[in-house]
């Protein structure tokens, strides 16, 4: 009796796991291209609810909705640029992790380079000033004598 129950259980388990296998849709090539596009796009876009996460990372409801939008638009045959434009039209440039180069963002893009340039100019000026200092005129005979006295350690005489 018992082995029969066991066999039945095993059979039931085998069938249910087969069903589970059948439930997993096998992705086609087209699907995998679309989903990798969707992932790439959602990694470029900021979630406005949790602002330091992309909508790929975030589990906020809005991020889920926006991921759904991306999937739907890819399915509808929209290009990546069209989808990004769609998001920017609604949420502004802030949704882009990489802000576009515009008149308002020039300082953002050029700022680090400008600071580096300022640093180099400053450095060059300091180096030049030091070099000018070291090119000081040679000592006079009197100064030589005093230097010699100092070096000999005869400080008392110098102090007088």
């Amino acid at each position, binding site marked *: 009796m018992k082995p029969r129950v066991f066999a039945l259980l095993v059979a039931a388990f085998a069938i249910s796991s087969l069903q589970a296998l059948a439930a997993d849709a096998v992705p086609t090539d087209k699907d995998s291209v679309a989903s990798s596009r969707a992932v790439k796009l959602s990694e470029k876009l900021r979630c*406005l*609810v949790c*602002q330091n996460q992309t909508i790929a990372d975030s589990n906020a*409801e*809005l991020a889920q*909705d*926006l991921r759904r*939008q991306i999937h739907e638009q890819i399915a509808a045959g929209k290009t990546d640029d069209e989808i990004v434009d769609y998001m*920017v*039209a*609604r*949420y*502004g*440039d*802030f949704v882009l992790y990489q802000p576009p180069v515009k008149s308002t963002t020039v300082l953002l893009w050029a700022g680090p380079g400008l600071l580096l340039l300022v640093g180099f100019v400053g450095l060059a000026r300091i180096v030049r000033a030091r070099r000018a200092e070291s090119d000081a005129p040679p000592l006079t005979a009197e100064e030589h004598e005093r230097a010699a006295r100092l070096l000999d350690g005869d400080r008392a005489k110098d102090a007088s």
Partner: protein
Amino acid sequence: MSKKLLIPLALFVVLCGFLLVGLWRDPREVPSPLIGKPAPPFKLAQLHEPSKTLGPSDLKGQVWLLNVWASWCVSCREEHPLLVELGKAKVVPIVGLNYKDEPAAGMKWLTQNGDPYNLSVVDRDGRVGIDWGVYGVPETFVIDKAGAIRYKQIGPITVEALQTKILPLVRELQKS
């Protein structure tokens, strides 16, 4: 030499100025690109009469407010008394966008807390919310007679925002 030493100090003071201003700014308030643009169209079922629809085109020719709310939204409770008062004053029509909510829960919430809306429409899956760039409920939009968005309040309406921004703008738009 002492003048040169003042340069880093001056730079530091400027930096402090920027940081100080940043302290008082809310990074969650992202300026909407929709300001000055025509209100995104929708045609949604009304909360209390699902067989009827409403859209921005039905409200052309008048200044109106669109308030995005939900029964699950905690800060909506904060602004609600103010909205109820504004609704009673009948200064400007208020349309509610019931965002990602169960209609039954929404209706119950309104009977409990008061209904300031001339009408509420149901945005069950949040698609209209996305079109309007909604990301933090509650949000309130001011729409002018021509159907363009003129102002967006992100987060609950405060007495200050109502008195200094929303109402003056509404009055000015109603005159034009």
